């Protein structure tokens, strides 16, 4: 199946999703939502890799997507473990409340 749209269209969707992720990281305070926004950024990047891979007829992008998927799984494990362990000892999690350190 040929690409239904020129690669630029896919790249633009990817750029918009990446930006949404960045805005989410900067504007939300719940660590879980921040983390989800980061996942959104990674997926936007995956879409870019995939588009370039198809447009360039090169296999590197596919492999890169595969690696990012694997690494993201590992990151999720660690990240959620950290958030849960903090929650266990604090019973509440908001980035702005992490105040025992300043400046």
């Amino acid at each position, binding site marked *: *199946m040929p690409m239904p749209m020129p690669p630029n269209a896919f790249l*633009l969707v990817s750029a918009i999703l990446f930006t949404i992720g960045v805005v989410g990281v900067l504007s939300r305070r719940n660590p879980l939502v921040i983390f989800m926004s980061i996942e959104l950024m990674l997926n936007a990047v995956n879409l870019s890799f995939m588009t370039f891979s198809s447009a360039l007829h090169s*296999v590197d992008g596919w492999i890169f997507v595969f690696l990012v998927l694997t690494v993201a799984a590992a990151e999720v494990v660690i990240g959620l473990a950290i958030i849960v362990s903090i929650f266990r000892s604090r019973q509440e999690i908001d980035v702005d409340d992490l105040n025992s350190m300043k400046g």
Partner: protein
Amino acid sequence: MLAGQIAFYVLAAAAIGSGIGVIAFRNAVYSALSLIVNLFCLALFFLMLNAIFLATVQVLVYAGAIMVLFLFVVTMLSPENDESLPTPDRLGLWQRGAAVGLGIILAGAIGYIVVGQAALHPDAVATGAQDLASQISRNGNTEAFGQALFHGFLFPFEVTSVILVAAIVGAVVLGRRTSSREGE
């Protein structure tokens, strides 16, 4: 071709809408559900780009396993812990404004880069292109991916196994520490 274009626009709208949902919902459970929709849309994009195997992996691993873990944690950590609760929010407003402003600048810059220009250099079409095309025509799409993964890219693949070991050890450390302290 027209059907493909319509499918693209529908998917793009769904992906962007669910992406906005991730960051806009006040309840983290809804954010997680939006992210699942978003990841599913991306899997369909992958299909559209002929990456059948990765689309499957995306659904199984990402939309499936990872997001179930996310939902599990979100619901475990007090689902009512949303930001609709009144919080002393002095910085909040301008911080959000600044974030959205920065986001618009970033989207503009990247959009200009990827759309306003002739995006791909014809010579950048890799020297391996013929190789890939012949692989795909001979063996099919997924097989070509597998051939590449287990030949030229075997080493990065092996390294991911080490990364997963590190993640497992880390999760054990973080998980066990809290339980051992509770036992005191």
